[in-house]
């Protein structure tokens, strides 16, 4: 089947989802009120709380949620065939991610734009805040471990990409300072920065940077040395103010992502390449992980991601001009993430084998078993993008470096952000546990935020993709489960039908718990002591969090339902029309 047909059908379903399902959610489930005074107006401060045009809010929201994760998950999951991966991306985006992202935004707007964790302690129970912190702690730990390995793998596999990536660091600081000090618009400096980065691609091809000689001299693997250097960099980068490095680099990266998306979608249309991967892969070797239920944790971002609730409730809710804009921003943001996942599937199922005489056997050579598929997932994505880029007359070797630079840049900013987030979480947990040295010191929590994932990232074997990626997926889905539980209770308390929220909530929690049990059995019975004594207990802790979440959500929902039965005609939040 031509990839372009798949693309058009999926985009058409997304459009229908927005037109009809999001309208149903907006009117019947979240009951958006155009007259409601949003926090952007009631708490306007000119910095965070600013009423903003909905298209601009959408672009901020989408840029915040889009990253490397919706690329990596689908690139691994294509192993089971593109059919299951695509089906989960489409159904997950329309019926779970849309409900989740849109709902988190709507509930946050009605709670003074507070974060979903704080709202959870009000709407569910005080314990829910601790549960939320613990889930986020594990989520961010996995993000930090996985993305460091993603970057190390790409640096190791594409040494031509090292120079362009390194150049972005001083370039971002320079551009940021230039725009700030000259009080000028950012457009021209951004274009110049992008041109410099891309000029470094051919330069990087001439001077590929590899750590092999240094690593050989000190007697460790180059991959391990990259991981060490990445964490050293992250430790220092996360101590810098966000406006100095993280955010200027992020906005340079955003241009790259837009460009990559355009290259993939245009490349698919121009190339008319066919899907090389089977719809369902029946040649899976014995002992491979089953797609059911692991598919639902392998693709988290791209289908439904709890991380989005943090963005919706933390930042986006403060900018909504009208409550009704939540539909466009929240639901459309989920569709944008789904489109990124679609691009990843197309690159790994069609793009990778564009030039092969026998695309199917070429693809099967890349996806022989789950470990190979996971280990080379990002490499397959970059190859696929490069092949699509070739449809637009961009040489394949340049395209590979271009795609690698995009993925590394996103993984690096995610890592930087996640280490900062981890530091706050460690400090908050330390406050609850009254561990004073961690609350009063900034270096110690940062060190912990770096050392814990570092321990996971340097484990022998390729845990980062095969296993840690799925554990990342489970924690991400648990975060989504908690956010959906908050939304479901809020909808119920307001006497509206919570079915649209309950269905994805139950589905997600069931699949995640099931996947955790499958993984637990695998780890506990593995011959490898690392799996038995490290990953099995880790899995068990996350499983305990999942059970805790189910109990908290069920109790809160039962109470809300009982209260609703007693006073069926009294919504808790009448619309406000002040100001």
């Amino acid at each position: 089947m031509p990839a372009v047909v798949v693309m058009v059908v999926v985009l058409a379903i997304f459009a229908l989802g927005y037109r009809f399902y999001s309208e149903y959610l907006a009117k019947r489930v979240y009951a958006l009120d155009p007259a409601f005074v949003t926090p952007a107006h009631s708490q306007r401060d000119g910095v965070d709380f600013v009423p903003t045009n909905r298209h601009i809010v959408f672009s901020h929201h989408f840029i915040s949620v889009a990253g490397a994760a919706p690329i990596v998950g689908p690139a691994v999951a294509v192993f089971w065939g593109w059919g299951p991966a695509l089906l989960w991306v489409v159904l997950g985006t329309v019926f779970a991610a849309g409900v989740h992202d849109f709902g988190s935004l709507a509930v946050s707007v009605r709670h003074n734009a507070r974060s979903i964790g704080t709202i959870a302690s009000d709407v569910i129970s005080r314990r829910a805040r601790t549960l939320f912190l613990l889930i986020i702690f594990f989520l961010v730990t996995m993000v930090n471990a996985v993305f460091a390995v993603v970057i190390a793998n790409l640096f190791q596999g594409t040494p031509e990409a090292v120079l362009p990536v390194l150049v972005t660091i001083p370039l971002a600081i320079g551009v940021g300072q230039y725009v700030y000090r000259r009080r000028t618009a950012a457009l021209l400096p951004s274009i110049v920065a992008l041109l410099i980065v891309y000029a470094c691609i051919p330069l990087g091809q001439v001077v590929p940077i590899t750590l092999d000689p240094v690593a050989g001299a000190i007697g460790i693997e180059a991959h391990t040395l990259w991981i060490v250097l990445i964490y050293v960099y992250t430790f220092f980068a996360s101590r810098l103010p966000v406006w100095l490095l993280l955010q200027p680099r992020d906005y340079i990266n955003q241009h790259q992502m837009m460009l990559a998306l355009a290259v993939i979608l245009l490349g698919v249309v121009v190339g008319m390449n066919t899907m090389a991967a089977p719809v369902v892969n029946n040649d899976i070797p014995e002992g491979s992980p089953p797609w059911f239920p692991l598919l639902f944790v392998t693709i988290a971002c791209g289908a439904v991601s709890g991380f989005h609730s943090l963005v919706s409730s933390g930042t986006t809710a403060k900018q909504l001009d009208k409550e009704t804009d939540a539909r466009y921003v929240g639901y459309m943001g989920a569709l944008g993430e789904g489109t990124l996942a679609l691009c990843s599937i197309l690159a790994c199922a069609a793009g990778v084998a564009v030039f092969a005489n026998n695309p199917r056997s070429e693809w099967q050579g890349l996806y022989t078993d789950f470990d190979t598929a996971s280990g080379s997932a990002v490499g397959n994505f970059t190859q696929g993008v490069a092949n699509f880029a070739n449809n637009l007359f961009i040489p394949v070797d340049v395209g590979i470096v271009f795609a690698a630079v995009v993925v590394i840049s996103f993984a690096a900013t995610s890592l930087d952000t996640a280490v900062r987030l981890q530091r706050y979480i460690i400090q908050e947990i330390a406050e609850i546990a009254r561990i004073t040295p961690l609350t009063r010191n900034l270096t110690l929590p940062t060190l912990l935020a770096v050392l814990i994932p570092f321990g996971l990232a340097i484990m022998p074997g390729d845990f980062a993709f095969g296993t840690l990626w799925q554990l990342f997926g489970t924690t991400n889905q648990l975060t989504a489960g908690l956010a959906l539980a908050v939304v479901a209770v809020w909808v119920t308390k307001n006497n509206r039908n919570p079915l649209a929220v309950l269905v994805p909530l139950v589905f997600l929690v069931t699949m995640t718990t099931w996947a955790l049990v499958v993984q637990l059995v695998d780890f506990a019975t593995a011959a490898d002591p690392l799996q038995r004594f490290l990953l099995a207990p880790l899995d068990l802790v996350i499983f305990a969090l999942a059970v805790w979440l189910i109990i908290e959500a069920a109790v809160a929902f039962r109470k809300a339902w009982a209260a609703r039965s007693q006073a069926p005609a009294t919504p808790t939040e009448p619309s406000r029309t002040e100001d």
Partner: protein
Amino acid sequence: MTRDGGDGHAAREQHPGRVRRLLDAWRRFEAFHDAVFASRWRRALRREAQTQADTMRALVLLETLGVDNPVAYETLDLIPAMIADLHEWHQRMGDPEYGNPEVCC
């Protein structure tokens, strides 16, 4: 001769308008680009400036918080400047009202 058959003078007369329109379009695009890509970074800068201003304000208004201010005399002149956006500040600090009703709002 120009394409429309007129002389160069007519073209020169039209030219500034065209250039202005192009410049306007470029400025609009710059503004759009800034709003989409750079505004989050600019917001972080404003937040940083605001944090510094808030710290300054807290120091200047120490006595209103019940804390002795050893440099109260020296910072007295700053109080009018601090009062200008007092309402915005106390709302941001989580207090819907500041002191007695007639003090601020």
